[in-house]
Structure formats: C-alpha cells, structure tokens
C-alpha cells in the first residue's frame, strides 16, 4: 500500500460509514443517496462499505458493486487533494477542448482517472458542465471555469498547489 493509501485508509471508520447508511436507508430508492453521502464525506466509496450497504439494503455485494461501477461519478479509490474534470463534449470541442485536454494530460503527466505524482490532482473526463457557451470548460472541485486555455489552466494548477502547501 502506498503512503497515500495508508493515510486515506485512516479517513473513515466502519461506524462512520454505517452512520451515513443509516441516515438515508429508510428513504425510497435510498441507494444513490447513500453512495453520495459516503463519497461526499470520505471522497470515495471504500471497498469496506460494500458489505455494510449490502447488508443494510438487503442486496448482494455483487449487486452493490454493480451499481457503484455503473455510474461514472462514484469511485472506489481515494483522490488527490483536488479533482479536475475536463469537458470533452462537442460544444467545448468546437472551441479547442481537444487541444486543452492534451495539454492538461501533459502538464500533469497523467491520463484520465489517474492522480498526479504529488497526489494533488486527480483528472477525470466529463461530458458537459452546462457552460457550453463559454467553453472550454473545466471543473475544479465544485467550481466551473470557462474559456480555459493552456495558460489559464497552468495558472489554476499553480494556485491550487500553492494553497495546498500553505494549508499544510
């Protein structure tokens, strides 16, 4: 296990996961609300959550796995300090998203679904952020940025990494 994974493994306890399940399990169609609650709190849905969810929701572990893996949003591994979503859809393609995507991958030295070596940034694709009149669009955590080019992206990354250092 890498250093980061060990660290992340301490970010949750089984009791905390069960708390999130119990907060939502009685709602109709509770599965997605539960998965969202767990991911919002811990950054991902830990493997260890699966049997707890299965037990609470009276489903098999395979079913729960099947649901988690169906949705692009849910992840089963920790992310870097920030998640960057790059829009790959048509309206952004029309204003240079393909070139931007190539630049971002090169700048961060990673492909989609990977985390940068300094554990700062996890890169994900996204198909539209609803900012299609001002693309190319990039979402950094919960903030959407418009008209992003190589320069503005590099500045964004610098800001992210310097604030992260200050916090530590």
């Amino acid at each position, binding site marked *: 296990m890498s250093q980061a994974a060990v660290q992340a493994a301490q970010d949750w306890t089984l009791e905390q996961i069960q708390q999130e399940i119990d907060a939502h399990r009685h709602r*109709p169609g509770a599965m997605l609300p539960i998965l969202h609650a767990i991911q919002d709190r811990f950054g991902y849905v830990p493997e260890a959550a699966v049997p707890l969810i299965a037990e609470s929701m009276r489903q098999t572990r395979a079913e729960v796995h099947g649901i988690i893996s169906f949705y692009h949003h849910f992840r089963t591994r920790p992310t870097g300090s920030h998640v960057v979503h790059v829009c790959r859809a048509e309206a952004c*393609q029309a204003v240079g998203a393909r070139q931007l995507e190539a630049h971002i991958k090169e700048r961060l030295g990673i492909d989609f679904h990977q985390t940068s070596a300094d554990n700062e940034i996890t890169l994900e694709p996204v198909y539209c952020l609803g*900012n299609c*009149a001002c*693309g190319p669009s990039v979402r950094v955590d919960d903030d959407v940025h*418009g008209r992003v080019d190589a320069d503005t992206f590099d500045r964004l990354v610098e800001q992210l990494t310097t604030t992260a250092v200050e916090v530590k």
Partner: protein
Amino acid sequence: MSVTVYVPCDTTALAMGADAVADTTRQAANQRGVELNLVRNGSRGLFWLEPLVEVATPNGRLAYGPVKAADVDSLIDAGLFEGKTDHPLALGPTDDIPYLKNQQRLTFSRIGVTDPLSIDDYRAHRGFAGLEKALNLDGQAIVDAVKASGLRGRGGAAFPTGIKWQTVHDEPAGQKYIVCNADEGDSGTFADRLVMECDPYLLIEGMTLAGLAVGADQGYVYLRSEYPVAHRIFSEALARAYDAGYLGRDIRGSGRHFDLEVRLGAGAYICGEETSLLDSLEGKRGMVRAKPPLPAIKGLFGKPTVVNNVLSLAAVPFILDQGAQAYADYGMGKSRGTLPLQLAGNVKRGGLVELAFGITLRELMEDFGGGTLTGRPLKAVQVGGPLGAYLPQSQWDTPIDYEAFAAFGGVVGHGGVVMFDDTVDMGEQARFAMEFCSVESCGKCTPCRIGAVRGVEVIDRLRAGENVETNRELLADLCDTMVDGSLCAMGGMTPFPVQSVMKHFPDELTHRPT
C-alpha cells in the same frame, strides 16, 4: 441614498469570474462610503457578456459587460453607481440590448431579472399566479389547459404533455408521482440549468401544478451531479418554498398536498432516458426498460408517473396564469409556443434565446449568434445534442420546428445548437459520436454496446486509409444495424451524426494527409 447593483450567480457567470466582481464591487463601495445593495440575480442568458453587471436607475436597469474584477474601479470612476454610461463596457438599458429585446420570453420572463431565491421577487413578477388559479380547479381542468396549449415535451421526444398527463390522471387514484428530468446531458444545452439556478420557484410551481393535475402528491427532481450550483440553489429554494407554505401539506391553506425532493444522478448520460432514470431513482443501475408498460401507467416504484423535462414543466405556470391560448398563439404548425434555444460552441454571442418556433437556423446563428467566435466561416452545426445530425450549410434555412426538422432527418431535441468553424475535422466528430455511445451505453443491447466500439474501430481504419470502400460499406451497415436493432435512442440515434458526416462531408472520413 443606496445604490442597487446586480451581479449574476449562475454557473456561467461564476465560471467567468462573477464572485470576484461582486467582492471587488463590495469593497470598492465600502472604501468610497457608498451604501450598496448588491443583488446576486440570475443570468439574463447573454453569456458572452458575463459577468453582466447591472445598476438600477430611476429609468430602469443599465447593463455593463463583460466585467472583470479589474474593471470594477474604472467602472465606478466612470460613474457606475450614478448610472453613467460613457465607460467602454457600458451597454445601455438592459432591456434594449437587441439579443434580449428580440426574444419572446414566456418561460424565461424572469431570469436574470430577479434574485432567484426571493419568493417576494418571484411573486412580484407573476410567480405563483398560475398556482393560485389552479388551486381552485379540478385536475381535469388543468390537464385540459395543458392540452389546449399544444405544449409538447421539451426533453427530446416532443410528445404532447397534456396527453401524457391525461393518461396518469385517468389511472385509478392512489400513489402517483411527478418526476422531473433534470439530467440535461446534451452538450450545448443549459436551459434546464438556468431554470433551476435562476428561477427555481418556476420549476417548483410547474411540478406542483402537474401534481394537482394528475393527483400525485410526491415529486422528484432527478438532477445531474455535474450541476453543483443548480443543486445548491434549488435545494435552498425548496426549503424556502416549504417554509412559505408553497409545498407540503395544505398548500397555502387549500387543503391540497404536494411534496418535492431533489435527487442527484451520478454521471451517466443514459439516465436522461426516462426509464433508465426511473431505475436510477429506485436505486438501481440505470438500465433502459422496454416499453410498454409506459411510465405513465407503471413508472416509479411501479406507480403511474409523469416524467417531464424541466422546460416542459416550467412552461405550465404561464399557461395556467395567462391561458392556454396565449401560449398556443406562438409557434408554427404542430409546434406551439416557444422553444428555449441554446447557442453554444464556436459562437460569438452564445446564450439562451427563447423564441416562437419557426425561426431559421441561419437567422439564429447569424442574427443572434453573430457568427463564429473565431470569426472564421461556419462549417457545420449540431442541433439536438450528441445524437443529433451535423447539418451542412444547405440545411440552415430550415425553420426550427419539430416536423420540418424530422422531414430531413434532423432533431430539434432539447434545443441545443452547437456551432463549428471550418477548422473542425468532421471525421473526428463522427468518431466521437461512436466513442461517446461506447462510454455511455447502458449495455442492454448488442447493437449499441458492441456496435459503438466497432464503429470507433471502423472509423479509425477508414481514416488510416485502409480498405476504404469495404470499410465505408461496413460503417453504413453498422449504422443501419444500430438504428434498427437498438432498444432506445442512444443506440438508435448515435448513427445520425455519423451518417450525416458520411453524407455531407464524405471526404473527411477518408485518409487525410497531416
């Protein structure tokens, strides 16, 4: 004396720096001892001007934009707070900006005007007027009004909304549901988002009206997780609507009951398809269901369910308030009312354009859009999202109308218009259509699940110049198989953009020297 300044708060305004503009304006007013009333209004939908700052004057609101935080001081020096208009960013009275003035905003009459979360603002602009009327009507009368308006679903399939509601209305009394499809997955669309971020009570009112019409007391909004701002604003509006007695038991003392909840999707395009959406709401994988049974008869948790797009539901308050005929007076042929069009991609003036059906694409792209952002010639336009055909110049004079588009194999869909200049490589676009389908297919049927993967491979071979004739035939066959053999429009329409490239831009699917 205090001055009222508006700085929008929708996703695009924020993406272009609106928060920094608001902060800077507050600080500057402070330093200068100006008493500032800063309103975070919704966006007018004139996105090339965002952040679009407005100031209230005795003669109406004046606009300035696009404003960066660094412009704020010079704007104030030039008399922003006094409503002076000699600054280069001054645009004059907001309502006189031609892009806005030339629209027919029925559904979007309030966006950008009001503070999205203020119920007082909403009411001051005819908000809840339709609901107040409907609280005294029986369900059938509401269904009849929607039928008479001619409203057709704005989510893609254009099915008459009133007829859908009638089916649910006619099911025996018992648990029924209203589900709002806010999955807005199509690239080039943002109208649903604007409703939820800039006029959230409109959707709440529309869904409540649907509930009263069909006898449903529970509604769900299925919102895509890619819209965090919409989620925040809409959730806050829900809480305030409950507090003010517009939701819950005994709505405004009427004895009527409607509960509403927002649920987040999880990044799956197919969950915009209504049956897949219902499975997802039930907590399952979002697999497409075979129809029949229709959701109107066996929908969410097996109960009769209205599934409507945000814009369909948001059109209803106007219809109840101003009358079905007032809505039906707009439009052409069997496409009645207005359509919120969305100009996106390589466009100079992108944004929301609500118009009666019947304007041509060319008028929309040139008169409103102002041509391409890059200033280069326009080459192709994709209307109706990732499953819509790429339209070449010869088709731009078609009026935007469901039937006129269907006649040449186009789709109006959710009204997204994505423009491309002459640097676009149409072969890449065809490939992307297949790639997108391979990423987003629910996996239930083979032509879609496997076909899309094969489609990418065949296009790659074509573009590498391998066995061009054979591969071209193969691609044509593959498209036919997907169209004929897919359960839903994901697999069934993914070939549309591909076929349009094969037909109108055939040279770009062959080997191209680099």
